[in-house]
């Protein structure tokens, strides 16, 4: 009996200690469980608050903990995906760029102006006067021609050759002027050359140094690489020759690679990092509760793209797909899983330029009755069994899978969930070895115009079988082809909503929800801007603590 008494009291002692520990670890609890954050509480924090309304100060070091690590700084290799792309965007510029303040429009970068011929096949770019690379040498038309030729070379550009569609050649008119000739009018050409593969690099250095150039790259971007410790961090130094007067304000920027979500948030909360990207949805309430932290919700063309394999007869049935759309309660998904940061789409693609608003192209309403009558009209009125593949390691995908399972049970579709790691999901996707899948954990468009994904889904010449959906609709394809070759913006603004509506009606794939990027930073960080593609505009950022 005495022995038992000792065991029991010992057990209680340990448990009591455990509770005491938990109590001091409590702090700010997540205030909201199921309720969404009111939309007014969120925002792209480019708005100036408090000390940030003063003038920018120069100097200081910004530590930014990032979800994706950098592997390769060659803009035509970027084997590390977004981790590389966001680094490349600090080091290099392109002829034109997405507006740093956000929005769909492009602004001049290396090119200060350009002329477009009436037939849309010739672009003449005028290089910004006095613009230099970070080593002081001037940017010339030779560098631009060299960079664009590389971008269009299918042997060099292995990652996004489709962005160079239509490119024929560049001609050096004079050291400040380059004429680019296309084989056919490409409406999205300026958008296609505004992104990372079309970065302008110094011809002589790249030819001289070969692969070694990318270990110490030289570009026109606001920052230069000072130190790259693979697997750990990348430190940037200010580019003294940056073309925007007075910028960048920061002396140094350090990217810490913090793939693990909790670790990254601890970096921010402890002050080790002043900015983070990829705030996990479940931690949004705790960031909002913390006075020292500011959430930053950025609209980007990101969506929860659910791809359907039309080689499966059930997925090829239009009524089935429409029924699936009607059975989704997007508000509930947004509130419960995404803490209200998402938005209901009215397109099968993410939110892009030329999209008609929700008043003109209506999103699918949540209507279970309609869903049931619609599936009754299909070839599978009694429903069927089907498998959903999705990437592992994401809390929100797990929850989303469970939600979809119970949503579609209402129309007789029994979903079997299959969680696989990203590479296995991708493998199955490209091989067409799936029924339904979320092919990418982070699914975004590379440009803010619909041309890229409209082509991928519709163009039989894209070589991707409807971007691995095995769907094709000839009338829609004809409209898309016309849209992508029409230069006049006003005409395009009329053409796209028609395509948007038709694609939404037949719903070859399902856009479950549009999602923003969710970043956060500590107070004292001002001017944190992100462009419409999610790239941080660190040239505009400054610290109130700088001397």
């Amino acid at each position, binding site marked *: 009996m005495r*022995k038992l008494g*000792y*065991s029991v*009291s*010992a*057990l209680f*002692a*340990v448990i009591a200690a*455990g509770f005491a*520990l938990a109590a*001091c*670890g409590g*702090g700010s609890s997540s205030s909201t469980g199921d309720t969404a954050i009111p939309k007014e509480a969120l925002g792209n924090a480019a708005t100036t608050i408090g000390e940030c309304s003063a003038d920018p100060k120069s100097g200081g070091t910004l530590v930014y903990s990032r979800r994706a*690590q950098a*592997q*390769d700084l060659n803009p035509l*290799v*970027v*084997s590390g*995906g977004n981790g590389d792309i966001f680094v490349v965007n600090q080091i290099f510029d392109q002829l034109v760029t997405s507006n740093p303040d956000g929005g769909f429009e492009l602004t001049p970068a290396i090119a200060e102006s350009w002329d477009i011929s009436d037939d849309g096949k010739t672009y003449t770019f005028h290089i910004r006067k006095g613009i230099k690379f970070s080593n002081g040498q001037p940017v010339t038309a030779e560098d631009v021609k060299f960079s664009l030729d590389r971008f269009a070379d*299918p*042997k060099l550009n*292995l*990652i*996004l*050759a*489709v*962005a160079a569609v239509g490119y024929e050649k560049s001609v050096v008119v004079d050291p400040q002027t380059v004429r680019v000739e296309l084989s056919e009018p490409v409406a999205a050409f300026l958008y296609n050359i505004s992104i990372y593969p079309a970065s302008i690099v110094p011809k002589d250095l790249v030819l001289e140094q070969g692969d070694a150039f990318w270990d110490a790259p030289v570009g026109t971007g606001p920052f230069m690489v000072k130190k790259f*410790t*693979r*697997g*750990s961090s990348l430190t940037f130094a200010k580019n003294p020759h940056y073309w925007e007067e007075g910028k960048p304000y920061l002396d140094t920027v350090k990217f*810490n*690679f*913090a*793939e*693990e979500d*909790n*670790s990254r948030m*601890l*970096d921010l*909360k*402890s002050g*080790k990092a002043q900015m983070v990207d990829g705030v996990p949805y479940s931690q949004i309430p705790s960031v909002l509760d913390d006075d020292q932290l500011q959430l930053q919700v950025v609209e980007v063309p990101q969506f929860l793209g659910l791809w359907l394999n039309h080689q499966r007869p059930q997925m090829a049935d239009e009524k089935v797909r429409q029924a699936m759309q009607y059975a989704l309660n997007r508000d509930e998904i947004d509130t419960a899983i995404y803490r209200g940061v998402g938005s209901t789409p009215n397109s099968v693609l993410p939110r892009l330029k030329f999209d008609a608003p929700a008043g003109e192209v209506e999103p699918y309403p949540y209507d279970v009755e309609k869903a049931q009558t619609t599936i009754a009209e299909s070839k599978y009125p009694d429903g069927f069994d089907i498998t959903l593949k999705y990437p592992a390691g994401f809390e929100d995908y797990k929850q989303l899978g469970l939600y979809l399972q119970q949503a579609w049970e209402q129309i007789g579709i029994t979903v079997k969930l299959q969680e*696989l*790691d*990203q*590479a*296995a999901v*991708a*493998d*199955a996707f*490209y091989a067409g070895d799936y029924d339904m899948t979320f*092919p*990418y954990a982070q699914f975004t468009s*590379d440009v803010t115009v619909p041309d890229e994904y409209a082509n991928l889904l519709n163009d039989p010449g894209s*070589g991707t079988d409807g971007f691995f959906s095995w769907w094709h609709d000839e009338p829609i394809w004809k409209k898309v082809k016309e849209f992508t070759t029409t230069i006049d913006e006003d005409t395009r603004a009329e053409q796209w909503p028609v395509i948007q509506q038709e694609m939404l009606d037949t719903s070859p794939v399902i856009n479950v929800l549009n999602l923003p990027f969710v970043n956060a930073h500590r107070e004292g960080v001002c001017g944190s801007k992100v462009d419409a593609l999610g790239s941080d505009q660190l040239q505009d950022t400054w610290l109130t603590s700088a001397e």
Partner: protein
Amino acid sequence: MSTYILKRLAISVVVLFALAAASFLLIHLVPGDPVRQMLGSGATPENIASVRSDLGLDRPMIDQFGTFMGNTFTGQFGDSITLRTPIGDLISERIGPSVLLILYGVFFALIIGVPLAVAAALRPQGFADNVIRIATTFTFAMPTFWLGLVLALIFGLQLGIFPVSGYETGVGGFFRTLTLPALTLGLSLVAMVVRTLRTQLLVVLGSEHIEAARARGLTERRVVGVHAIRNSIMTTITVISVQIGFLIGGTVVLEYVFQIPGMGTLLIDAVTNRDFPLVATITVLAGATVIVVSLITDLIQLALDPRVRLADS
């Protein structure tokens, strides 16, 4: 004795060979293509085919296997597919933090575990004994991932004693950045140390030579601290060496949680990228480490414990 060592070495080589073959085969059986991972969604089928061919990934499996085995056993490990740098360079860059983490972790396991085991053994079934056994079972059962985050939260964020993440070189950096992860590792191992040492101590403390030592008038401290410990520690060392696999696995998780650029995070990235040669090489190295550690432990036992030596001859 030398025949024993030679036999062990021969078996080790066979085991390593089998391990290399198994790692190679397994990573190739898992779905996923490194070239697709590298090039992304925008790559055309022609691009992919040409890169696969450049990297020699379209050669027959037997061919690739032969190259891999040759590379591994001559120590010229070949190149990483994704990072396109020699694997040898990558490993020498990243092995430091992992080795330091494991050693520091074992140090913590011992420095916490040995005193606790002694305290528990001196009054078996006493209050201290029960608390110690229950508490160490808790830390053993806690997932390393979770325990690491909790320590980072308490000692890093709330108390501010250590940084919450990261790795710095140098002596100061070692103590600042590796203490929390090593402590996590040590705490998960401490239960094993405490249990085995306590049991062995109880056996030894009840034995005749200890009684004799006490009868001769040696202080309790000398009896326990010198004679009892010395006879018990061997089981503990054996247990730790058997756990080396667990420790290596623990570093993978802890490096991920604490943002330490060691072999663990290198392996995680390699698996995500399906970087076949890198995954297989790291696995073989981990296996080799286990084999070497176990061999060394046996040799230490041979050297320290006359009973084993005599039994062998």
